[in-house]
């Protein structure tokens, strides 16, 4: 995993869905680490903010009405890995 960004997320589970089942589903994605839940929301860490993981994973879950919101709480950066402009 070479990505530079780690994200703190809070996923709000759609009413009627089992948070434990959602946690199990999320845990299947190696780019996600599932943390605590308060019964309605789940704390998640993503190691890839790019559309691939954050968007694809969560959008699919949203489309199945398993989750209502994904709140991005914070982004942790690696300041040693900035890029110069390509083609310079």
């Amino acid at each position, binding site marked *: 995993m070479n990505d530079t960004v780690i*994200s*703190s997320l809070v996923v709000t589970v759609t009413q009627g869905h089992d948070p434990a089942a959602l946690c199990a589903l999320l845990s299947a994605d190696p780019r996600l680490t599932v943390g605590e839940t308060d019964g309605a929301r789940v704390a998640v860490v993503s190691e890839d903010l790019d559309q691939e993981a954050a968007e694809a994973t969560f959008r699919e879950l949203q489309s199945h009405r398993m989750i209502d919101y994904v709140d991005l*709480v914070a982004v942790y*950066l*690696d300041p040693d890995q900035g*890029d110069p402009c390509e083609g310079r």
Partner: protein
Amino acid sequence: MRRRDFLKTSAMAMAASALTIDRAQAADPQPAGLADDGLTWDKAPCRFCGTGCHVKVGVKDGKVQAIAGAVEAEVNKGLLCVKGYHVGLALYGADRLTTPLLKKDGKHVPISWDEALTIVADKIQTQPKTFAIYGSGQWTIPEGYICQKLMKGGLSNNHIDPNARLCMASAVTGFIGTYGVDEPAGCYDDLDACDVLITWGNNPAEMHPVLFSRVIDRRSRGEKITIIDIGTRRTRTTEHADHYLEFEPQSDMAIANGICHLLIKSGSYDKAFVEKHCNFRRNEGEQHEKKSLKGIPCTFAEYETYLEEYTPERVEEISGVSADNIRMLAKLFADPNKRITSLWCMGMNQHTRGTAINCLVHGVHLLSGHFGKPGDAPTSLTGQPSACGTAREVGTLAHALPGGRIVAKEPHRQQSEDIWNLPHGTISPKPGYHTIAMWDHFCTPTAEGGDISTIWVQVTNPGQTLPNLPKLFERKEGLEDKFLIVSDVYPTATTKLADLILPSAMWVEKNGMFGNSERRTQQWFKMVDPPGQARDDVWQVLAVARKLYQRGLMKDKDGKFLFEIHNEQGQEVPAWDWDHYYDVNVDKQLFEEYRLFTTLKHKNLAPYDEYVKSHGLRWPVLEQADGTWRETRFRFSEFDDPFVTKGAGIEFYHSTTGDGKAQVWFHPYEDPPEKPDAAYPLWLCTGRVLEHWHTGSMTMRVPQLRRAMPSSYVEVNPQDAKSLGIGNGDIVAIDTRRGSIELPAWIKGRGAPPPGRIFVPFFDERLLINKCTLDAYCPISKQPDYKKCAAKLRFVRRAGART
């Protein structure tokens, strides 16, 4: 513990803590639950757009290592866009400029700061009247203020203009022409109260996503909000719109006139509001030179007559928007029970009749009485984080002075001279060159009248953003007596032609203040050191001024240094010496001096320390009896604006007619200066994308953002692509009468132009679309039109084929 594991632990602690806290009661500045993660948190506005979101910046080991949305900030309530979450990485591109560089024999070679400052001072001293500063809506307020004072006070030279000329000058002239004073009356709170949101040539879903989300969030909570997108191509905003009205470029003027025509014809305009609060106005004639911000008065009956030709059917002919949809718009505005907010940004401002269309949209709101109540507001958005705070309020435009003063008026000059302790007569009454004229004169040989010899560029990238680059920038190459100084943080299209490059500190590497789109002034402190020898822009100007003082310039009328900085004991501090620059808060002293101007036109600001305590305050900010400072959300409305006379309800207290009334203007539809023809059959429009901010000089260095949107493209309608034999990803050439570039085609891309139109974003410095754009501008605001010119598309090679 590996660094990555540490970050994951911190991230999980943050996520878990977010489960336990009530967002509205989050601690500030440190997010709850992070007391022991080793990060030091402080607040700052985001570095990028004009929304002015507040971020929390986590610093450890001298570097920015975490970014969170500031939950308690009213602007964004904890939310950030994809750029905002990555803003910290913009500091850490591998190719930061870290030492002054001088061009010698065609190469940039390192020199010392003292050598660099001496060169700048030499250039100014030898040719003070042909020296110019080209600044920015990304200048902090103190940065703009010190340049303003150096030029207009210290050198009696008004050749200073910001890049904001390219993005919001027409909004300024629209506000002044209508209300007599600049900047929106409403604020972002309107987005929480409106029933109808109309976007005029505006794509906030991508360009101001945090603001747009306020409306979408309301919908998700079950509220009914009608969104009407009046645009020239489908965008992500269109996806959320109830109505998409696609208009022929430039014809927004006809649409606005059509709405007003129907309001009057049906008798459904707000008669009481108009009678009490409005005058009517038009230009003297339709010749270019007759257009001005003053115009001449006309009666309501004359105004009605001028609008006669803008029947729904005639507007449909001009604009392509159906007569029924024009009626639908008029019916909405005729409903007094609806709250209607209009938003616009570059679509209306980058327009050869930018002042006119701004005035017309204000006119629609005034005529219908949709003004002055929460949710009823005509509001322009800015693209840059301090276009309002620094360009408009500090007045760094070529004709302006701080606090809404202008150089043409003697009393205004004298007020400025008094505050700066200069003899009366110091400030020149003649406006300096606006942006287009400045660069034209710089790129024209001296012998041919090109009377700008040196430009100092700060915090902007004109080598990528000026229109018609071959004429206004690239001609500089080979002009040996022209000297270009660039203060920046990264190599850019502009530094390529620079003779001298000065490495700057950026964002939280320095103290700063911004002013956002809703009159909100924001402050932050330096949190990390800049790399290498990069230094604050304020210091750069201060150090140059000191060198000039040592040569007998930059003195006030008592012979003192014009930029004396003092400590709390009142002793002068040698802040021009970098080793002493942070002995005191230079920003605070410059701001407190600037603040004296802000009371002159009801743009009152609070003391610096009030901004330290807050996430920004919207001016006018007035001290209350209990010593607290109160901001103003809705100007000109008695219920909120303390300057409105009691009992007046609404009062335009800077009315250009002196009677407390706003001006409703008539401007006829006019064709643009260049339209598609047989040789160049397509409309070319340019703009931005979600992932990159402006020229990409910062965001293209953030790996996540660059991977998400790695290069520029041209959006092509499938029908045009088919007729030209172009497939998705094929390389095509765009030709205009100014220049040509090659880039990949994107068919059915993110945006969807109709047949006959193409769109190209300008963030990619390898694909400079501004080689092709037109430098024609609004005759009043002098803002050029990047949104429409005639172009031709040519197939070059198939996707993946080698060159």
